[in-house]
């Protein structure tokens, strides 16, 4: 596996006259837990959709574990587990069938372990269309973790889970990072990032305005830094 798990080089994303991302550079070494935070419309979901190959950058390049996401999408997806903001699932399949399908596609096993981790076991044979939003999110999370992908990208995937489930998932993600995987977790909730991430990247108006290690910050400092950088960006201050 490449030493660099996520490599975003000079990425710009423009829709008509709207600049969603402006010259974003992000290099994440393997074995890092990155928290991605930003206000609504900062460009977090756009960045994640570029990482998962769902959209193409107007300029720049995106690589997952050394593989160009747009030149070799299938190879990149084989190295990636992803949960988008609104996960799409086969509504008439059960979670067990959905996971079995994903495992077959990935050439992996571990369906039962993924069901146990997300505590979907009791409902695993019910159709997904009967699930609550939280259960749907758990199913998508279980799919993303199947086959131990080296890179995991999660868009607001832990928000909305009940606290015990969220704690268990965070612990599992931490365990995987310690074993060499890389996690990028996008969220509005600063506390979540402060608790689990090694590094925090802040986006504001499509630009990276801060990129810091959480160990360099004291308690409560992350939220203060976020608000300060956001204010500076709003006032036309330079990115930091």
């Amino acid at each position, binding site marked *: 596996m490449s030493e660099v798990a996520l490599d975003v080089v000079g990425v710009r994303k423009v*829709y*008509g*006259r*709207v600049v969603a991302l402006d010259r974003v550079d992000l290099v994440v070494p393997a074995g890092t837990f990155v928290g991605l935070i930003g206000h609504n419309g900062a460009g977090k979901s756009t960045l994640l*959709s570029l990482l*998962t*190959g*769902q*959209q*193409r950058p107007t300029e720049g390049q995106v690589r997952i574990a050394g593989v160009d996401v*747009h030149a070799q*999408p*299938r*190879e990149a*997806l*084989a190295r990636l587990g*992803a949960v*988008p903001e609104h996960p*799409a*699932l*086969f*509504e*008439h*399949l059960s979670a067990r*069938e959905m996971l079995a*399908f*994903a495992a*077959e*596609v*990935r050439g992996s096993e571990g369906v039962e372990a993924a069901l146990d981790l997300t505590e979907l076991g009791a409902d695993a044979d019910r*159709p997904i*269309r009967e699930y609550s939003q939280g259960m749907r999110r758990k199913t998508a999370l279980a799919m993303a973790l199947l086959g131990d992908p080296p890179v995991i990208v999660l868009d607001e995937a832990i928000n909305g889970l009940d606290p015990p489930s969220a704690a268990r998932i965070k612990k599992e993600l931490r365990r995987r990072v310690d074993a060499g995987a890389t996690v990028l977790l996008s969220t509005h909730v600063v506390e979540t990032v402060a608790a689990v991430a090694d590094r925090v990247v802040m986006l504001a108006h499509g630009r990276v305005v801060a990129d810091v290690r959480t160990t360099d910050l004291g308690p409560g400092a992350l939220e203060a830094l976020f608000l300060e950088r956001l204010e500076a960006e709003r006032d036309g201050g330079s990115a930091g």
Partner: protein
Amino acid sequence: MSAAPYLRVLGWQRRRAAAAQGRGARVVGAVVPLVVLVLLLPLVRTAFLSFLDGDASGWGAGLAGAFGRAGLFVLTVAGLVVHATVLRGPARAVMSLLPVDPRGVVTAELLEAARRTAWVVAGTAVVLLPVALEVGWAAWALGLLVLVGAAIAGLVGGALALLGAVHVADEPGWAPALDLLRGNNPRPQAAIVYALAPSTALGGWLVLRAAQGAVGVLGGASDGWLALAAPGVVGLALLPLVGRVADAAWFEASVVLAEIRARYAAVEQEDEARHVPLDWVIRWLPAAVGRWVLLDLRYGWRSQRAWLSALWLLAAGGVLLGWTQEPSGPVRAGLLAGCAGWVAGVVALLGSREEPAFLRLWLPRDPWVRAAAHVAVVVAWAAMPALLVAGGVALRGVLDVGFAEGAARALRTAGAGLPLLGLAGLAAALWSTWRERGLAPYLGTAAVVVAAAVGLGGAG
């Protein structure tokens, strides 16, 4: 990896979705097509098979025409089914985040499209049954071969054209051509919307030749088999190419479709945050109706623009039909313009089907007001292309004879088209009260009414 896992999950989805509808809906789903076929049989006999009333020596040309038209219908539907299944199928959102085998996925989706198209082939063969009863079963079987060949050509040609369009969607070399076609759509949308035109034109040529071949075979000409088999054989021969194009374009298609959605969103944020075409009509409507009209207009314009584009294609066809000195020209043009109303009705039906549940559950609304809004929107959408048709037909009359003739031709066009258009609005309003179950009976009603109008127009 083979297509097996993809076939399996698509099959589960389809069967369980049908089972989840409930017994009543399943019965309606089975009965409505049968009723439609029974009603269509005499109408098709009158509109398309009237040559059977004449001398048997004229049956050859009549059969070639009937088989050709039926084949073109199947070919077109097959292409649209591929569009809805392979390119914009609901499975794409799930699979595009997994390292799926594009060949396997497209193979499974094409088989799913073939399964859906088989019903269209079967239904079309049923309405051609008068050929079997009055000419002979051999003639009918040859017609069936034309339909099967058309289906294969439509499925394979549609897949190649649509996946190929993904390739050219953002190619700078294609930009000038796409700019000519796209109007205010993004280029990739234009590439995808018009992709089926060349494949349908080429497939249509083969299908019309096959129809003539069928008649040749019926007359004992063994070389007719070659033309008869051509659409199916060419389609099957091109099938391996689909796999290669899928490898190159399946993942890219997800990107292109996301880009199209995002570009519309960006455009809407800037220029269309509040405005959509025809939204000014609400000025003249009561406020209670106007707010629902605005909802339909916004939904149709932003989510179902392909259907609304089809209205203008129908209008262009109407102008071509009416651009003739034949007395029947204005009536035929009017009938085609009236059909545009039924296409517009589909958008209103889809709007009702996809309306968020909270609108029905938590907001008070009068069903008659909602129905009135559907009628208003269907008529508003269809009125502009209908005016184009009437104007084109009138212009031909003015150029040929003078203003009086132009006005008379426009009136004949309106007389033929307006009742169809009005009925479309009423049917859309009526069946939209059934929400997701209303689409099938609406389409059935459309088939019967349009066939009846065509039959009456032909008889007239």
